[in-house]
């Protein structure tokens, strides 16, 4: 019994510590004047307002930013789901020459920092391919998320070999195997990978900033980052406006997560890591 109290206690403390900055973010976005005192954490009703949202919307078009973020992220998720799954399946289930080298490559890709590649990539995509100021140019460097490939591979690894052998004996081709046998079994896990892949492009602010000069094409993360560093100082309640923008950027991610989080049940992630 005591240990149960300890468990719940630890979790509750942890949860509060984790959620507090978000609570503060929402509070900050609704206050007329930022109040860093302890009392300010529990705002006075007279200090509440929605004008921060209108203020920031006046400077950066929130809806358009959200739409751009959506297109950018959607493109990446599509690429990752289609081609990442194929690669993950091949790495896990099929036996072929160059398999371990490819997997090593998948891991290596994650070691290299993006900022190192940024300008050569920019030159290539903007100059050689002529894709600046386009969604395709934005999506391209992120098109297939390597971490997702690792995750897909893990899921497929968990499927029992016998399943595939039986289907092969029945004459099923590999593609059919993937589509009808393997995929349905890992579908909830696909959702997990989608949610994790979502986070990268949704929050990316450096690359889209470089590749799109046109302010109407910029995703919300870019507009917000720029707002914070340059324009905020000249608004009436800079902190409030920043918080309002932050809430708008965070809300869809959190909402999406809330809706689909039950698919994160540990059983599905599959013993994603074998013990």
């Amino acid at each position, binding site marked *: 019994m005591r240990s149960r109290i300890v468990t719940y206690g630890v979790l509750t403390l942890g949860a509060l510590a984790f959620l507090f900055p978000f609570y503060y973010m929402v509070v900050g976005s609704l206050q007329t004047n930022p109040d860093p005192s302890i009392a300010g954490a529990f705002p006075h009703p007279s200090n509440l307002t929605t004008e921060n949202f209108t203020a920031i919307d006046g400077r950066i078009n929130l809806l358009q930013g959200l739409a751009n973020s959506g297109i950018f992220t959607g493109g990446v998720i599509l690429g990752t789901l289609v081609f990442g799954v194929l690669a993950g399946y091949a790495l896990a289930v099929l036996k072929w020459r160059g398999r371990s080298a490819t997997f090593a490559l998948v891991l290596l890709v994650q070691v290299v920092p993006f900022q190192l590649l940024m300008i050569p990539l920019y030159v290539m995509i903007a100059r050689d391919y002529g894709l600046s100021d386009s969604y395709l140019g934005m999506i391209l460097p992120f098109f297939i998320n390597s971490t997702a490939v690792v995750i897909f591979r893990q899921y497929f690894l968990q499927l029992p070999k016998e399943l595939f052998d039986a289907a092969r004996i029945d004459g099923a081709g590999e593609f059919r195997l993937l589509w009808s046998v393997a995929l349905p079994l890992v579908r909830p896990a696909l959702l997990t990978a989608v949610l994790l892949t979502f986070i990268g492009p949704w929050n990316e602010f450096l690359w889209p900033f*470089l590749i799109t000069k046109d302010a109407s094409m910029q995703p919300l993360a870019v507009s917000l980052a720029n707002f914070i560093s340059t324009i905020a100082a000249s608004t009436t309640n800079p902190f409030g406006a920043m918080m309002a923008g932050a809430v708008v950027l965070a809300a869809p991610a959190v909402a999406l997560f809330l809706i689909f989080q039950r698919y994160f049940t540990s059983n599905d992630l599959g013993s994603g890591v074998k013990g």
Partner: protein
Amino acid sequence: MDAKGPITIWYSNNDAEIAWGQQMVAAWNAANPDQQVTAQEIPAGSSSEEVIGAAITAGNAPCLIFNTSPAAVPGFQKQGGLVDLSDFPDGEQYITDRSGDLADQYRSDDGGFYQLPWKSNPVMIFYNKDLFAKAGLDPENPQLSTYDEFLATSQKLKAAGVSDYAINPAPTSEFFQSWFDFYPLYAAQTGGKQLVEDGKATFDDADGAAVADFWRTVYADQLAGNEQYQGDAFADGKAAMAIVGPWAISVYKDKVNWGSVPVPTEKGTAASDTWTFSDAKNVGLFTACQNKATAWDVLKFATSEEQDGAWLNETGQMPLRKDLTTTYADYFQANPAYQRFGDQAARTVEVPNVQNSVEIWQTFRDGYSKAVIFGEGDVKSFLSDAETQIDQLAAGK
């Protein structure tokens, strides 16, 4: 260089400048239907130089950028991104006629003009008259012209508790922040010297030390904060003074009852002899431009007496024009608050037009931050170390 046709331009992204930009473009387009100008705000960012540099590399920079920082010009020039305006038959003439002596600071090493000196924001000291009065100081004649006076006034403000800080320049480490604390005072103290002249750093001497020691005292006595304030400290009443140019007037006008004086010097200098930093932004014509002749014509149009006047009216920032106060006497009479800045605009110092300009300023800032703002290490070694490094950078390492 002779091609004519449609062009694209970028202008700055704050409200007043956008307003001017739009009317300028509209006026041109109405008169030149076959050479239409498409305009766009410069992509915002903590440093728009990155965007321009990247655009040059990719070959898709616009024809004109009305917000080119002089510090970035050497870099863009090295990239092969800028057109030498002196190559136009009337280039040299136009620029020197318009800007007079001030134009020389904007020449590159090879004598050409890779930028058109456009407008400046001479940096001066703003002070909050109400807070000064509250602290028992004379709001019409503040004692701010020598270092001793300035420090004494600041101490009084602090003792009276009227604001958190006497003055609060940004203490962060971006390469350009020194332009708003050290450099204006250095310009004043030396009567118009740049940080680097003839390829050598100039600041490791009594003048440089005087300025650096002054700021060290300010930080040591906590007359200024060493943490970034989100927002404008002067506008929010957290600082009794600010060191900034006339663009800030539109921000302050409804919030603070302000006055302005030139920046201080060690022993005090008459206002009509005091120099300061220009905080200029210029216009670059980029090699990626297809229709350079049109771009040049648009540039001349945008910096004509009429358009410069419209600019002055709209933004209150000073066109880099000689005889400014006489040409626009009406404006200054109608807006006496800007008169001081108009005068000051004739005595401004620019960042040195040398190689590795950005890196030089970053090196300076890093050392300044350590020794002056945070008091780690002494000012003397900072100045001499920085001088050694900067001499190397200016020589191309």
